[in-house]
């Protein structure tokens, strides 16, 4: 649950960073006073918020995994459901 929430938060922070970068880059390319003020206030505000959201997401993710490192090949996207009764491997 926390892992899914963390992924959503990372997605929001990624989108926020893109918006912030567009603001800041446009103020560098087209340095109009209003655009500069918007980039330096709103743009940087969004970027800081996005970074804070990302760090929070990482903290949540670490909390959900108990601080244990999970390598890429072992981290499951969706947990497999337990096998239904009678469909499991034959008892030896």
């Amino acid at each position, binding site marked *: 649950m926390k892992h899914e929430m963390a992924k959503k938060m990372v*997605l929001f922070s990624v989108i926020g*960073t*893109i918006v912030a970068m567009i603001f800041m*880059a446009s103020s*560098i390319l087209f340095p109009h*006073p209003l655009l500069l003020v918007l980039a330096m206030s709103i743009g940087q505000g969004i970027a800081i918020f996005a*970074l804070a959201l990302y760090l929070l997401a990482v903290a949540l993710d670490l909390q959900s995994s108990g601080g244990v490192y999970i390598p890429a090949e072992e*981290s499951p996207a969706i947990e497999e459901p337990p096998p239904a009764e009678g469909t499991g491997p034959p008892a030896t």
Partner: protein
Amino acid sequence: MFSIHSTEQLLKAIALASAVLSVLVCLWYIVRRPHLNRVTKSMLLLGLGAFPLIVSLTGNIASFEYTLSRPFCGSCHVMGPYLRDAEDPKSNSLAAMHSRNHKFGETSCYTCHADYQMFGAITTKQNGMKHLFKYLTEYASTGPDGEGGPTIHLYKPFQSGACMQCHSATAKKWVETHGDSAEAIRSGEMNCIDCHNEVHPLALSRRPKLTKGGVQ
């Protein structure tokens, strides 16, 4: 397209490159949606933390440098007459003569109008924010050169200290030519522009009701 000839341009290039890298990392995450493992987290830390920080630092410095330049001051249409006069090679106004100075001509507006004090840069930028607010609320819908808008004036009388950054008020020749006024100018009782009042003639001619002394 984008050539690098100064520190400001170098900073802008670094800021733009960092912004592009940051967006690329973000797009990579959106498209691939990888697991939140150590590699992904490190990549995102670069894309969401390190690169935006570089954009912010270099972009702020470059933008601050640009805000000192004459084209930036003239980017609001109400400054058109002031800018045209300052950039006119035939004009003999103080603004034009100072703008032709190769030492600070490109930043002539800021050099003469910035507050000359310890925190002058900060108070000048605060006034810049006030300019922007006034522009948006009072001048945005005025004529091509600001016709129909309120009279443009300084927030406080022009201080001779700005002139004395370069023009020494103690040099022998200056003392000789200014005679009895020298002490009054140094003490602030008299202003340089009380006599040298051809500062922005083009703008003054468009606004004939203006008077000198605190108003330009």
